[in-house]
């Protein structure tokens, strides 16, 4: 796939046929639930998970005992057995923990969808619960000192002992190459966080609700890991979110308009690690996002112009903007110009993005909040509702094994 990416030629002869895809149009997201997103929940992650899952079950019009599958991705501190012991789900027959960290933001839905499409389970609950603001923040440097005198794996040994300990740093290296090669300016970068903050002002559940930010505020915010400023980086969140996946057939008897999965994709390319994609011929683009986009368009039989609204996994502004390029919403290297002024990604723009505030301004719920917003756009219940949404796209994180889904009415 690296070769296909370099040639910018997505082959179809080495992919399964679209007809063989059991997920397409057969599986839907039927329930969404979340807790409050706060800076200090004062509760356990297990506790938060129970509430979010109960909310998703109620939203779908199901009973807790209907849930027979669970799915999340790695780096989860919940114990699934204790979650089952708390929820009292008596018939769990499928569980999955996908690799790839934030890249698996949508892969979790992909695997859950595969499970219901192939009869492994009827109702799979995808869950995430975090106390990242008050408790343990992922990827903080000082954790490594306390708990890890030796790098976790051989490959981490080449980067961690150098003080190179956070995803913001790992991504900053390819982000800087992108800025360098395409003359992307700091001013341009700023429009992504500024527009997302505008969206958050209409979303009372967003972390930054009631706290607007101008482009000037952005420019004046402190540098965290140069080239990333404070407001280029995702917020810290305490909270939980969950959604429930079942077949379109079963969805007919449930409460909500189903968000039908028109296409789903996952990509684990070569020369890939935790954002350290440094041995690829070019590191100023994202093969995994490009591949996921191409696959989504192939399976859903559509193109970027058909997508009405997108939720792009943006742990940092650069990661969001490069995805605009790789998904074909603008030309390669044009992402900076595309977001300049913000209109293209606003609600009436070419492609409204992260309409609940995204990971920068709504919550860093590891992408669960993006999936939930993608579903709301299909249902017509978003706080920033885009008109007449037919196709709603959601992606997983950049620079790691990534994933995506296209939802339709």
């Amino acid at each position, binding site marked *: 796939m690296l070769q296909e990416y370099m040639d910018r030629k997505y082959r179809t002869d080495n992919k399964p046929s679209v007809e063989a895809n059991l997920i397409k149009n057969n599986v839907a997201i039927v329930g969404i639930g979340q807790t409050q997103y706060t800076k200090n929940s004062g509760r356990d992650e297990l506790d938060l998970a129970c509430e979010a899952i109960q909310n998703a079950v109620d939203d779908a019009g199901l009973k807790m005992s209907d849930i027979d599958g669970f799915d999340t991705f790695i780096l989860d501190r919940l114990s699934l057995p*204790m979650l089952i012991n*708390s929820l009292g789900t008596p018939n769990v027959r499928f569980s999955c923990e996908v690799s790839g960290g934030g890249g698996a933001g949508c892969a979790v839905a992909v695997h859950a969808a595969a499970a219901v499409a192939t009869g492994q389970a009827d109702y799979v609950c995808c869950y995430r619960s975090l106390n990242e603001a008050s408790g*343990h923040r992922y990827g903080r440097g000082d954790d490594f000192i306390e708990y890890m005198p030796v790098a976790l794996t051989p490959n981490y040994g080449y980067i961690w002992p150098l003080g190179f300990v956070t995803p913001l740093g790992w991504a900053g290296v390819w982000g800087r190459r992108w800025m360098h090669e395409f003359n992307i300016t700091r001013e341009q970068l700023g429009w992504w966080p500024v527009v997302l903050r505008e969206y958050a002002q209409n979303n009372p559940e967003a972390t930054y609700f009631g706290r607007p930010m101008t482009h000037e505020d952005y420019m004046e915010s402190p540098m965290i890991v140069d080239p990333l400023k404070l407001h280029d980086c995702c917020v810290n969140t305490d909270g939980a979110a969950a959604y429930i996946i079942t077949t379109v057939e079963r969805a007919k008897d449930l409460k909500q308009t189903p968000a039908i999965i028109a296409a789903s994709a996952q990509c684990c390319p070569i020369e890939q690690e935790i954002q350290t994609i440094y041995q690829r011929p070019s590191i100023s683009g994202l093969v995994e996002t490009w591949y996921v986009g191409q696959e989504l368009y192939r399976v859903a039989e559509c193109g970027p112009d058909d997508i009405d609204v997108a939720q792009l996994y943006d742990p940092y502004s650069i990661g969001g903007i490069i995805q605009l390029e790789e998904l074909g919403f603008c030309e390669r290297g044009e992402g900076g110009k595309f977001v300049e002024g913000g209109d293209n990604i606003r609600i009436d723009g070419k492609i409204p993005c992260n309409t609940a505030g995204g990971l920068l301004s709504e919550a860093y719920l590891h992408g669960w909040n993006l999936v939930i917003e993608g579903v709301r756009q299909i249902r017509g219940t978003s706080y920033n509702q885009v008109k007449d949404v037919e196709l709603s796209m959601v992606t997983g994180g950049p620079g790691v094994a990534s994933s995506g889904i296209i939802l339709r009415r």
Partner: protein
Amino acid sequence: MTVEYNPDQKIPHPAMWGVLYKSSTPFWEGVKNKKIMLQKCKSCGNLLNPPRPMCPKCQSQENEWITAKGTGKIYSWVTFNEAPHPAFKAPYAAVLVELDEGPRIVSNMVDVKPEDLEIGMAVEVTFEDVAEDLTLPKFRKAG
């Protein structure tokens, strides 16, 4: 016999990575005060061990805590002839005690050799300060 510890080794602490689950805090606070506390669902009365944030029977998130009598019976046990962790000196037994209230709890025995253990043996709780920041509930033969 009592479990003996190697003084230079740290006994695994329930607050893994320095974090004690909030739903478990009343249990460990109780142990500090020489009591076994059991979580009880306010809605259906279900008794739960280990503690958890939601009742698996009725999905209520409201609960209260009761003090167990501290008596029960040996339900099962294993004997470690080799220590699986450097803090412990083998041989010693880990017992599963069924409390009179119903829930089962994992513990160690005080003043009972592993070879003298029997399923159904009546036991009662005692508390041992095993480290500066850790008290554990243990059991001895009743009566």
